[in-house]
């Protein structure tokens, strides 16, 4: 299967970072969510941001989408600095999937998928074609497209949310605990499928999770965060065999007690 490419990606972006964060700080009241952070995400790679709740990993995604603006520092996408004037266009180059999907309950699955393409002026045939491709990619039964989110299973909702993020064929996918609300069996199946999908798409993927085995399953690069700063940045084996500090060791040890072990 091939995907119709309507890429907005310019030729340079293959060589520059897909996303770059430079000395960014972000404070919510008295809490320092992100503290003087610098991170680069290479185009076409899959990175997992891990850490406990409140470590700032979700804030990183929100900064990359311009849903939050840094107090200090800069964020750029594909070499373009993120500015309020272009944020809408830049967001359309990035798919965003959150826990439980964030589907609009008043629209059917199809309605959720068509929202952005409608605005972009796509005709019905083009929307239908793209929907069919993505339904095949995500193994969503076509009948489910007519249903409302409340009528879908948790796994189907995540598939629709992923399709919605991919409709305009973005360069990158940002996923915030995408499998967090699923029961273990569905979660296990979707982990398999998502890994296959990421491989097929060959896009820049940044995934936020607090589950170390899941992070290791998806990503070659793990970024462990704590209190708004990066504690360790490397592959799973680095974290396991050479923890940067006692916290990393504890984090790895705590995760290893889970019954499921990464393959």
């Amino acid at each position, binding site marked *: 299967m091939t995907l119709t490419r309507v890429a907005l990606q310019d030729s340079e972006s293959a060589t520059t970072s897909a996303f770059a964060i430079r000395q960014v700080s972000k404070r919510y009241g008295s809490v320092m969510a992100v503290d003087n952070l610098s991170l680069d995400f290479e185009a076409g790679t899959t990175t997992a941001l891990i850490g406990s709740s409140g470590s700032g990993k979700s804030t990183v995604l929100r900064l990359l989408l311009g849903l939050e603006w840094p107090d200090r520092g800069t964020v750029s996408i594909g070499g373009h600095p993120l500015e309020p004037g272009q944020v809408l266009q830049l967001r359309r180059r990035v798919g965003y999937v*959150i826990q*439980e999907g*964030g589907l*609009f*309950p*008043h629209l059917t699955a199809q309605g959720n998928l068509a929202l952005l393409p409608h*605005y972009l002026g796509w005709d019905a045939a083009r929307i239908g074609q793209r929907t069919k491709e993505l339904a095949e990619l995500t193994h969503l039964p076509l009948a489910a497209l007519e249903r*409302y989110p*409340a009528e879908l299973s948790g796994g189907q909702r995540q598939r629709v949310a992923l399709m*919605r993020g991919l409709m305009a064929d973005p360069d990158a996918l940002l996923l915030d605990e995408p499998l967090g609300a699923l029961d273990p069996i569905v979660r296990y199946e979707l982990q398999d499928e998502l890994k296959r999908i990421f491989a097929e798409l060959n896009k820049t993927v940044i995934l936020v999770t607090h589950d170390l085995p899941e992070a290791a399953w998806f990503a070659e690069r793990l970024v462990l965060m704590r209190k708004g700063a990066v504690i360790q940045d490397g592959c799973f084996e680095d974290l396991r065999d050479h923890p940067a500090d006692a916290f990393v060791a504890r984090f790895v040890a705590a995760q290893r007690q889970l019954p499921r072990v990464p393959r």
Partner: protein
Amino acid sequence: MLLPMAGHADPVRIGSKQFTESVILGELARASARQVGIDAVHKRQLGGTRILWRALLQGDIDVYPEYTGTLTHELLKNVPANADIPTLRARLKPLGIGITDSLGFNNTYAIGMRADEAKRLGIARISDLRRHSGLRFGFSNEFMDRNDGWPGLRRRYDLPQKDVRGMDHALAYRALASGAVDAIDLYSTDAEIPYYHLRTLDDDLHYFPRYEAVYLYRLQLEQSAPRFVAALNRLAGRIDEQAMRGMNARVKLQGVEEGVVAADFLGLRADADGHPELWSRLLQRTLEHTKLVLISLGLAVLLAIPLGVLAARLRRFGQIVIGLTGILQTVPSLAMFVFMIPLFGIGAWPAIAALFLYSLLPIVRNTHAGLVGIAPELSESAAALGLPPGVRLRRVELPLATRSILAGIKTAAVINVGTATLAALIGAGGYGQPILTGIRLDDIGLILEGAVPAALLALIVQGMFEGIERWLTPRGLRLVARQ
């Protein structure tokens, strides 16, 4: 509102105050017009003196019955208290207002008590009241405040009574008869004086001025309807105190229609206009009432939803808007209706304006609450898609807030149906009309004729909105609510 008088094709508009004698005199004017072949409409019981006077000055009505004492003490400044009608005529002319000669009776204020009670306490004159400081007074609301009413009376006679309440004039008689109050203000032509065996106390210090009944009219009528003005002037001197008390008694005590009483006085056959059949009355009032509710509600929706959206977007602005509309809500409805008169005259438009202002708060507040209450992950998902704010509002946020907004509109509509009954006070008609008349004539049947349809209409509106809610709420949201 301030339209100039058009040619004689427009019917002459007669107004009357909110008590029986005024309505009868209004009907007499209408019957006289009919006698000389002039088209006339009677806007019954529009309200108190101030409302009628302003309506006449602004040209919302052309004629209404008034009393000389009210002109000298209340309406005209710097006029001697005993000014005669030619003096008044000269003073009214610059205002564009004409005045007939006295119709023939003096309906002055008086203070009345139950005859047996007055005898027991040995009270015959108003000065005698000074010796009984514990007596309870129930005065009509207008009398409580007028220059020639209670404040002046208390000063002139140095009256010590503390328990003084304002109440509707028609209800005051019943309060007196049942012993709830000891003395009330009367009009000397009231039919109830003999009926309730009342004693009118001597005004021994000559406090109350003369209240000769007259018609006030706009001077333009002398050009546009000279025959009507002549007919009004022919009524002068024809109605003595006895005749007026008799007409009042027929209406109040025997339940005869004012129009019939007036026609009988002139020796005419009554026409149908004064008292249409129950069903056509109901139909007309339903049309008037729903018109008030629908127009005010429609305009409110047009303004309140955008205001609610802005309030949800701009926190500071939102606090101000919700605060201001909240203040509007606290204005007593009667006052709100009267405030609108200088801006919109009398009739349907000031009522619509008042109802419009009352409708704003529930709709603004619910629009605001509906938008602010959207789960943050949903508004954020819409933003993350890269949709501009306008599209997000139309396609995501407003649909998600539909229920809350509709609930606000429903609240406004139901409140409006009830509040619109007060619109009759400023000549807008509707279900309030029979309620007002019923209170005036002490006729429970008439009150129910307005109250029951108003309650039914409120229920129908409520039911309709539940239907609309079911129809407009997106199916997906109903599924969510069911789970």
